[in-house]
């Protein structure tokens, strides 16, 4: 943020609520729905106050029916509404897989480009509080394989607000992944209205020795690791792609060409995570700029244990990042 921008310090939860309120005030065709999102305000308290503000037609509780929630959103979108459905947990996207994978991104295309699908589907994800194997996952990378869908995964309150506002205004389907551990995290958010484009990565920390590409909670882990590394004179550049589709490879490649060393960190399992695609593209386009092999840290390729003690070991840690960066610098 430039110095001239007036900011306030709020949580990501508050930033998301602000984005929802502003966009719903701006556009009467917006409609928000999901399980317990009405009077109750959502299990993550992300929709608090919206029912009172916009009424029960535009903010409504649905039955527990994820396929219907997402399918209905598509039906609303192609007939003039701008739906903002929520699934209580991102893991439940599996229940609506046909709707998300086969419909949201394809409906327009397979019908000859005649309709628009302005759906913003909010999906809380991430390991948080011993929720177990079906309430802790980060399934975002699955949808990098589904053409036609945009994927946003913010790491800060400011990014969450700016990206969500853009997502809602966008005339395509956007899957909006929110890491549950970030909801309470505070950050500076501009007082004035602003938008953040989809497909524009953000360099969260400038550095010269190694490029760390990280998403969601892992951006913060990477920044912490970078600060520790700085004490040893190692300057890491930390890049948050912010959206996985579109993916801003230009920003990533520019950094890689500068540092010649790459580590990709994410919470989804290492195999088939977004790091796999990013690494492949770096190898295709900048292999000879590299001084060391591309490294990835993800969660282990096993289901997430329920145990609140064990779950912490799934999350990539600051120490892991520091170790791998030091290894990269040995080449």
């Amino acid at each position, binding site marked *: 943020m430039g110095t001239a921008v007036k900011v306030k310090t709020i949580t990501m939860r508050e930033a998301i609520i602000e984005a929802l309120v502003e966009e719903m005030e701006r556009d009467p*065709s917006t*409609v928000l729905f999901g399980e317990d999102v009405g009077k109750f305000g959502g299990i993550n308290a992300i929709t608090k106050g919206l029912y009172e503000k916009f009424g029960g*037609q*535009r903010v409504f509780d*649905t*039955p527990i*029916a994820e*396929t*219907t929630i*997402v*399918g*209905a*959103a*598509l*039906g*609303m*979108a*192609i*007939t*003039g*509404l701008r*739906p903002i459905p929520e699934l209580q947990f991102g893991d439940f996207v599996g229940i609506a897989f*046909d*709707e998300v994978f*086969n*419909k949201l*991104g394809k*409906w*327009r*295309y*397979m*019908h*000859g*480009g*005649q*309709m*628009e*699908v*302005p759906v913003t589907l909010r999906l809380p994800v991430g390991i948080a509080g011993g929720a177990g194997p079906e309430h802790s996952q980060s399934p975002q990378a699955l949808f990098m394989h589904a*053409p*036609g869908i945009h994927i946003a995964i913010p790491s800060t309150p400011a990014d969450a607000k700016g990206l969500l506002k853009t997502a809602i205004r966008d*005339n*395509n389907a956007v899957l909006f992944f929110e890491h549950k551990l970030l909801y309470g995290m505070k950050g500076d958010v501009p007082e004035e209205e602003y938008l953040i484009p989809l497909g524009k990565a953000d360099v969260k920390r400038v550095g010269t020795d190694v490029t760390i590409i990280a998403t969601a909670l892992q951006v913060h882990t990477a920044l912490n690791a970078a600060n520790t590394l700085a004490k040893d004179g190692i300057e890491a550049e930390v890049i948050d792609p912010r959206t996985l589709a579109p993916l801003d490879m230009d920003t990533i490649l520019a950094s890689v060409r500068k540092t010649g060393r790459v580590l990709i960190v994410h919470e989804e399992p290492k195999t088939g995570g977004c790091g796999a695609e990013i690494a492949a593209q770096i190898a295709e386009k900048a292999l000879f700029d590299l001084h060391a092999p591309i490294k990835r840290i993800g969660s282990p390729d096993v289901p997430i244990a329920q145990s609140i003690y064990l779950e912490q070991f799934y999350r990539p840690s600051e120490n892991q990042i520091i170790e791998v960066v030091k290894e990269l610098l040995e080449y």
Partner: protein
Amino acid sequence: MAEIYQKEIKLSDYRKEDLIKFYREMVKIRKFDEHLIRLMHEGKVSGFYHSGIGSESVSVGSITNILRDEDYIFYNHRGCNQKIAKGVPLSKIYGDFLGTVEGTTRGLGAGIVHSADPSRGVLGQCGTIGSQFNIVVGTAYSAKLRGTDQVSVCYFGDGAASREPLHGSLNWAGLYKLPVVYICENNGYAISSTFEETHSVREHLADWAWGYGIPSCVVDGNDVLLMQEVVKEAVERAKLGEGPTFIEAQTFRHRGHFEGDAYDYVDKAVLNDWKENRDPIKSFKKKLLENQYCTENDLLNVDEEVEYEIHAAIKVAENAPLPEPNRIFEGLYA
């Protein structure tokens, strides 16, 4: 329980020109289908087609003179019956099958599903049969929220009715009193599985809707006028904000599930009975002639006019070019 819909209908309740229109529309659908099958045999169109012959009355009975352009439909994967009744130009539907730029998808190709004509409320269809159950409650909610009296009609087969989304959909439609009309084309088979083998019902599929508090009935789908009556009532209810209706239209397919299906799992005698005695076009024609609403010649004229229209449409579709290969990169994003 679902009632069996019955009603005394006198031809004189209808204007003569409307009766002829119903006949014409049914013939158009049948001839469209027959010519499409011919194009398959000529190797111009892929055989991924589920003929709609034998059920034309379900579509004409539920659409012609009832639905407006602004009413939405999700058509069934069988035939092009509903698309044609809703007025999608024939050349455009043929164009989708032939893959020329005349098609609604401008050369991307579509067939049994994926043709669309939003200007006529034809919003496309799912390749995963039955997924329209979810989408239709969205279009209906949208109409309601926008304060219009647009009706959303959802067509599906008895097989698709086994999909889980039907129940999510009925629950929403009943709960939010949505302007949806569900029309099940129950032709007794899902590919080779009989209705009885794959459904747990009291007696009829429509009984499921009854369980959700949704008015429902079973009707002879091959009687075009009976379909008109029952659907008019349902559409009226929807427009008045009285909520959804579930109609199970009983019918039968004259051909196999797909072109090339040996169709030997169906009792020949049963099939012949449907073809000879319950063919919707034959029966309606007989009724018109018996009641002297028109002469054999009048109807032959209609047949000829339709035949001409079909040939002209095919010509337009065939003469249009195939798309450039880079067509596949157009239209992904708005």
